């Protein structure tokens, strides 16, 4: 295999990883946790942003899915992650989205970034970043 072929293989991996992440956003917004589950490795680690009630590290697929379900339940199903862009790199896949949720008359509307790591087409790590998690900490209180 030439170096150029090698480069093409890597680039295709990045595009495929970005596609997996886009499918994940779609399943998440549809509340389809079963389709979402298929995209995560069993030993996935998820870092939820901030210092609020739902923040911190979730270990394993079950904990990660339970966290996603909590986001929906605590916002009466209103939680949406509207995708602005998904970037595929060699080591990381980055999702940029607008987070929107409503609960008990409170509204959360915040730009968010998630850095994903994928192995063999599955998400093994996700780390959330926010422009102002004090907003989300207040919201989830």
């Amino acid at each position, binding site marked *: 295999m030439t170096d150029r072929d090698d480069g093409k293989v890597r680039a295709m991996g990045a595009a495929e990883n970005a596609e997996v992440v886009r499918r994940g956003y779609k399943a998440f917004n549809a509340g389809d946790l079963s389709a979402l589950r298929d995209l995560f490795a069993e030993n996935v680690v998820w870092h939820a*942003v901030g210092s609020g009630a739902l923040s911190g590290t979730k270990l394993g697929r079950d904990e990660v899915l339970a966290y996603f379900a909590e986001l929906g339940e605590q916002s009466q199903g209103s939680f949406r992650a509207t995708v602005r862009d998904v970037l*595929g790199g060699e080591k990381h896949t980055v999702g940029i989205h607008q987070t929107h949720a409503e609960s008990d008359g409170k509204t959360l509307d915040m730009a968010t*970034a998630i850095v994903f790591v994928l192995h063999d087409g599955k998400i093994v790590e996700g780390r959330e*970043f926010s*422009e102002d998690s004090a907003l989300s900490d207040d919201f989830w209180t």
Partner: protein
Amino acid sequence: MGAAENAELVRRGYEAFNAGDLETLGELFAEDAVWHAAGSGPLSGTKQGRDAVMAYFGELGARSQGSFQATVQDVVGGESHTVGIQQTTAESNGKTLDMATVIVFVLRDGQVVEGREFLEDPARSDEFWA
């Protein structure tokens, strides 16, 4: 300019920033660049124009006695955005900031026209700068 060139420019920006070379850094920004500093602290909010952005970068250094460093973990170039993933470290008056950070850049014609910071815990960063 393509995604790879934009990523390369952002890497040059990190290098200049960490070297405290604001003159080189300034050349990478468009005159009407807009920067969104994360959180709700004294340095947070939108900086309008290259001068305001550079003044903000200068403040980060000045208020941390020059200890502020953005250690690059990865730069990912896309069609609409270029993303920098970094570990931010700074020390000030016995306080330490050590936080994973993402910056989403928009480039036009080989210059940064927008940057938006995202932090793993903006409230903790607000405390550091308070």
